[in-house]
């Protein structure tokens, strides 16, 4: 159970959520539609805020988050089921990959565990996650600029 401070919600969770949905567009080499992305980010963050308050073991909220993100990809961003599933899992897997590298490096450097991070003062807790978001943002910009998708293009013309 995790009580996310409002500052973390506004200055970390929402940017992170925007990157999650933008990454879904980038891996499929679609131009990013900002209105559905922002709407999806706000809905996702709001739902995840309440899910995190539930007394669930660490990790279960991520699995629930995948479902929410898939539903938002499908119905708000008009992805097909196939694209939505792959985009949801790959976006979150990439985020976890970066947490396991960038955030883990910070943990090792400052001798912090995830429990200690959750108990840090609000602003420190918010800012500690920024390096991985910045790295992720740079990766997306490079992928977009050099048109390097993780995946191929849709084979079905009816997919968006």
């Amino acid at each position, binding site marked *: 159970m995790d009580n996310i401070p409002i500052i973390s919600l506004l200055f970390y969770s929402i940017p992170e959520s925007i990157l999650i949905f933008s990454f879904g567009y980038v891996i499929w*080499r679609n131009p990013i539609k900002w209105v559905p992305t922002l709407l999806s980010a706000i809905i996702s963050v709001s739902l995840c805020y309440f899910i995190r308050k539930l007394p669930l073991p660490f990790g279960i909220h991520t*699995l629930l988050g995948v479902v929410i993100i898939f539903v938002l990809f499908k119905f708000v961003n008009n992805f097909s089921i196939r694209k939505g599933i792959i985009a949801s899992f790959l976006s979150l897997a990439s985020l976890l990959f970066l947490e396991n590298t960038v955030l883990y490096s910070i943990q090792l450097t400052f001798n912090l565990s995830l429990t200690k991070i959750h108990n840090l003062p609000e602003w420190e807790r918010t800012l500690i996650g920024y390096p991985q978001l910045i790295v992720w943002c740079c990766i997306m910009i490079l992928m977009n600029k050099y048109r390097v998708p993780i995946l191929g293009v849709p084979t079905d013309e009816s997919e968006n």
Partner: protein
Amino acid sequence: MNLKIEDQSLVDKLVFVLVIQVFLMVLGERVYNYYFYQNILIQNLFLFVILTNFIIVIFVVKILTKYQMKDCYSNKNIKFMENTLKILRAERHDHINHIQSILGLIVSGEQKLALSYINDINKDTNFNNSMLNVHNASIRILLQNKKSHCESKQIEFKVKINSSITSLHMKGSDITTVFGNLIDNAIDSVSQQVDKKVITFIIDELKDYHIFMFKDSGPRINDLVQKELFKKGFSTKGTNRGYGMTLILNTLNKYNGKIKYIDEDKCFVVYVPKRG
């Protein structure tokens, strides 16, 4: 490596399994980190293995979908070749009859008629040759139908193909909505003319966009009409009309496309972003 993917659904299943597997592995590592945070060699090795696996899975998924895409393109190419052969067969069938007709006209001394006959065939042949360069079946069929329609109204329908539009990703119904409506508007525009009636359709491309230009020999659209052109219900052709341009705009919005009226050239230009 020559890999042929026969079953698209098998590739999809493989991709799903790999993506879900890598997600569960990185999540597992994160959960392990949360509950058992210790800076020991085994945990770091475990992390290294999982992260390497993540990178490998991304490459494998990319290769699988790349071969799936190549397979799809080769199927599309085969269909295109089959359609091309049909056009060529039809042309060859008529060709023999045309040769005999021209021979007959020349033998009977009707040289001028023979020349006019050859010019007519030449236009049809040029049109069919242009169609061979259009890789999109929906556009090809639409243009062939509109050409017949224009011929019945004694309108010259010219087509210039400067791009094969292989990466156009519009649905067939949307192609008919956008291009069919624009060509119909051009036909309406030139129908009232007394002098030469010409409609020109040009396909071209930029680095990131396909471009489609619709020119006609009709009058220029005046400034007032240009401002109201895309408004629902607005029409210069009477009441209970005026939905075509709105429909075109809404359809193009689905693909992040644009439409503009170029005053200097008296033409509509449609831009559709390329896919892939």
